[in-house]
């Protein structure tokens, strides 16, 4: 832990060490706060408490071994990380996944997006002092976990998306279960609204707090719901479509004020859109033109050798624009693999928006950014 003592601290100011063990830092983030009474003068986020040296490890793994490391980046939405990695490796090696696999990828990543936003919904409410939404969110999340368990055997970390496709086709009876869940889940979103969104305490703790203007958001390179809550219409699914997102019919929810409430509400609306996309995928998968069982590109070996070159692929993960920059020298291992973790870039803005806010709002702002430390520290 950094032993830095604040040097320029005045008599009426106080230094508060927030984290790394604090229930509302969502992991192991530390913020060094300088406060004057209730007002934050300076907030300095300190990251790296979960630094696992992943980019170094990628260089010592083959392409298929590296996949399991990506699960552990943003562990709440593991499928997104798998997909981002596979898109980069496929681009590098010139592999095209079969169409059926692409639909399954989109379906799995939208389900994972719902699961991830549900964790946000639950934990954000806990941060704001409401415990009940946590129980509702995790009840629905467990249903998605069950669906994933049927798909690939894993609850949290899936490794379902593989280089060249997905590991297996949908098991028998899965689509019915998935439809059943989606039909159950859609009206639940209204319940969440009645439970939390209209709550006056919640509104006053999040409305107008931690405002990020659109141009600041762009300059800081924010992405995902954090960027869209400031009214910037940038979603990789629309701006640079991958897999079959170009064929999907959905809208990108935008916020107006860029405050904590908008960031929260953007995610709630996104869940509704994810349900729509999932239904479209299920319809397409039931169609006759996609051959069942054809979910893996032909000739993709486990000891994949990508030709020398560089490729960058990005995709819209739950937390924003997740990118993988892959460099190959023609060998069995990636020569270099860089991860653009959206949480890492989103959390940097804390040093700007924490200044001048009340100390109780720090938790609200941090919660609304919805960071995952595995991805921040890598």
């Amino acid at each position, binding site marked *: 832990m950094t032993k830095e003592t604040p040097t320029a601290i005045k008599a009426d100011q106080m230094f508060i060490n927030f984290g790394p063990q604090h229930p509302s830092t969502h992991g192991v983030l530390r913020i060094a706060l300088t406060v004057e009474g209730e007002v934050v003068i300076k907030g300095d986020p300190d990251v790296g408490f979960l630094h696992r040296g992943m980019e170094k490890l990628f260089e010592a793994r083959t392409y298929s071994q590296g996949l399991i490391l990506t699960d552990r980046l943003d562990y709440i939405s593991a499928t997104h990380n798998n997909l981002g990695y596979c898109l980069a490796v496929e681009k590098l090696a010139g592999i095209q996944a079969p169409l059926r696999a692409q639909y399954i990828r989109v379906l799995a990543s939208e389900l994972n997006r719902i699961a991830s936003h549900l964790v946000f919904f639950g934990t954000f409410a806990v941060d704001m002092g409401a415990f009940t939404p946590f129980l*509702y969110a*995790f009840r629905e999340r467990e249903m998605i976990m069950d669906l994933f368990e049927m798909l690939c055997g894993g609850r949290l970390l899936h490794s379902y998306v593989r280089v060249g496709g997905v590991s297996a086709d949908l098991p028998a009876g899965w689509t019915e279960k998935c439809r059943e869940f989606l039909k159950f889940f859609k009206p639940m979103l209204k319940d969440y609204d009645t439970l939390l969104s209209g709550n006056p305490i919640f509104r006053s703790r999040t409305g107008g707090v931690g405002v990020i203007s659109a141009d600041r958001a762009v300059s800081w390179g924010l992405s995902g719901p954090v960027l869209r809550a400031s009214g910037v219409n940038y979603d990789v699914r629309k701006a640079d479509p991958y897999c079959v997102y170009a064929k999907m019919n959905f809208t990108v929810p935008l916020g107006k004020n860029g405050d904590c409430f908008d960031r929260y509400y953007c995610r709630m609306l996104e869940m509704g859109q994810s349900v729509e996309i999932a239904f479209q995928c299920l319809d397409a998968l039931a169609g006759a033109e996609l051959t069942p069982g054809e979910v893996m590109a032909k000739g993709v070996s486990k000891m994949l050798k990508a030709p020398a070159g560089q490729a960058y692929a990005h995709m819209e993960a739950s937390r924003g624009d997740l990118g993988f920059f892959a460099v190959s020298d023609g060998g069995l291992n990636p020569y270099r693999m860089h991860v653009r973790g959206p949480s890492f870039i989103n959390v940097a803005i804390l040093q700007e928006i924490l200044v001048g806010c009340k100390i109780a709002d720090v938790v609200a702002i941090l919660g609304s950014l919805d960071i995952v430390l595995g991805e921040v520290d890598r």
Partner: protein
Amino acid sequence: MGIVLDNLSKIESLPGGGLALATSDSLINWARTSSVWPLTFGLACCAIEMMAAYASRFDFERMGVFPRPTPRQADVMFVAGTVSKKMADPIIRIYKQMPEPKFVIAMGGCANCGGPFYDSYAVVKGVDRIIPVDVYLPGCPPRPEALMYAVIKLQEKMRKMTVKGGLGATPLQAAGSRKLI
């Protein structure tokens, strides 16, 4: 009273209750095993499965496992996730802040031995290199049921403790491993 003790013998019925005899060991261990309060402390992926264990479907609280946000009130620390070298010192500090008797469950492959990061320059290969561990729970990540099983195993260990053994530490704990830090 709805208490079930292993070696409790009721010796006399009195109006409004009864007189019972039990050893202090079994009474204390009964209290200890049925209120295993962990620290709300997640490191990485396993923390999400730990959260799931507290939540609706698994409902850890029915086992008396109720998360406490401060180490001063906690009995057990779930080391849920990868222990990085930067985090090692804070973990030791948190562990020292916990009151005796304290227990540690190393949850997941990373906390056991480094897991998928066994060859990383930034990861401590197992939390037992810095603090003593009572229960090792394999898995990457372990399911919430597995965490429950780990707590049951810990309760089994707790039942074997005696008041004579210092602060409730088992002879092995009293003898050594705690001095390592």
